[in-house]
């Protein structure tokens, strides 16, 4: 009888909010929200002495050079970064028309060389333009062939487009171009 008359003791939840606030503020302070984005590249494996240099025809190589004054040289001509995308696109999609440009997209290689004194931001914008050129070329091809943008393709189509336009951006072995 005595038990029944005793009211069920309630836990005082008044401080629950305080505890939760404390935790909330802890997480607000110690965590960051930014998601990481970046330009993904793949480095070539370290060269050994006995690997023969690849045999690539001159016309299939687009030479891109950035010197220590952050000037851009494409195939020996001074170029601005905002022209690079169009030049690269023309080079990739040449298909043997212009004798100075690539035979076909599979063979086309972009060779990027930079100086030790080049600014990182310049290098990134050049890399970005090269990637953008490939992305646009693939996009146009996907649009023509499948009527969809590159992002909307399924895995098999994606492979097909990638095979047709392999992204060959090769970075030259580092050396000092202007001796600094």
């Amino acid at each position, binding site marked *: 009888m005595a038990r029944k008359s005793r009211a069920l003791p309630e836990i005082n939840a008044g401080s629950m909010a305080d505890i939760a606030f404390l935790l909330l503020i802890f997480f607000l302070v110690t965590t*960051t929200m930014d998601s990481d984005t970046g330009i993904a590249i793949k*480095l070539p494996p370290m060269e050994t002495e006995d690997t023969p240099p690849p045999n690539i025809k001159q016309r299939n190589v687009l030479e891109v050079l950035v010197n220590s004054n952050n000037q851009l040289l494409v195939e020996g001509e001074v170029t601005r970064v905002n022209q690079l995308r169009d030049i690269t696109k023309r080079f990739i999609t040449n298909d043997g028309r212009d004798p100075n440009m690539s035979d076909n997209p599979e063979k086309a290689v972009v060779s990027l060389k930079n100086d030790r004194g080049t600014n990182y931001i310049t290098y990134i914008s050049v890399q*970005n333009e090269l990637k953008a050129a490939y992305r646009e070329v693939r996009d146009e091809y996907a649009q023509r062939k499948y009527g969809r943008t590159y992002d909307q393709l399924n895995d098999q189509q994606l492979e097909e487009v990638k095979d047709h336009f392999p992204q060959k951006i090769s970075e030259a072995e580092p050396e000092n171009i202007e001796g600094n």
Partner: protein
Amino acid sequence: MAKFKKKRTNSGSTGINTASLPDIVFMLLFFFMVATTMREVTLKVKNNTPAASEVEKLTKKSLVQYIYIGSPIKQLESEYGTAPRIQLNDAFKTKDDVILFVNTVREDMPESQKGKMIISIKADRDVKMGIITDVKQELRKANALKLNYSTKKKDANDKGDF
């Protein structure tokens, strides 16, 4: 009049019901726990990454290891000068430590994921390529070939300003 007085005293003592406050705060708490990531290191170098449009998202945080490159922050300038430095985890290191760093973190990874490791270079926009080329060469020696230049995202049609 008596009626009015009685009502007033009643309402004054009730107050706002705060019973659901913990629920609201917990909801916020869980949101932040899910949506954010722990700050893994204290930055000792300036880290204003450049912007690029062709970016990929680094989704699997467990596969990513960071190398920070930049000049020391203002508070450390008197001690370390202004020349760009490499920061691995919480300390300044030289390029010779990169191989060891890569091998150590690779050891700690599960066997199945060792080949998928991505090195993210978080370099300041003001550094020169020399130090980055050095790090890249070291990474090649360490056979860590998946690289990611950490950049901010910008609009694709913005073709750069020079």
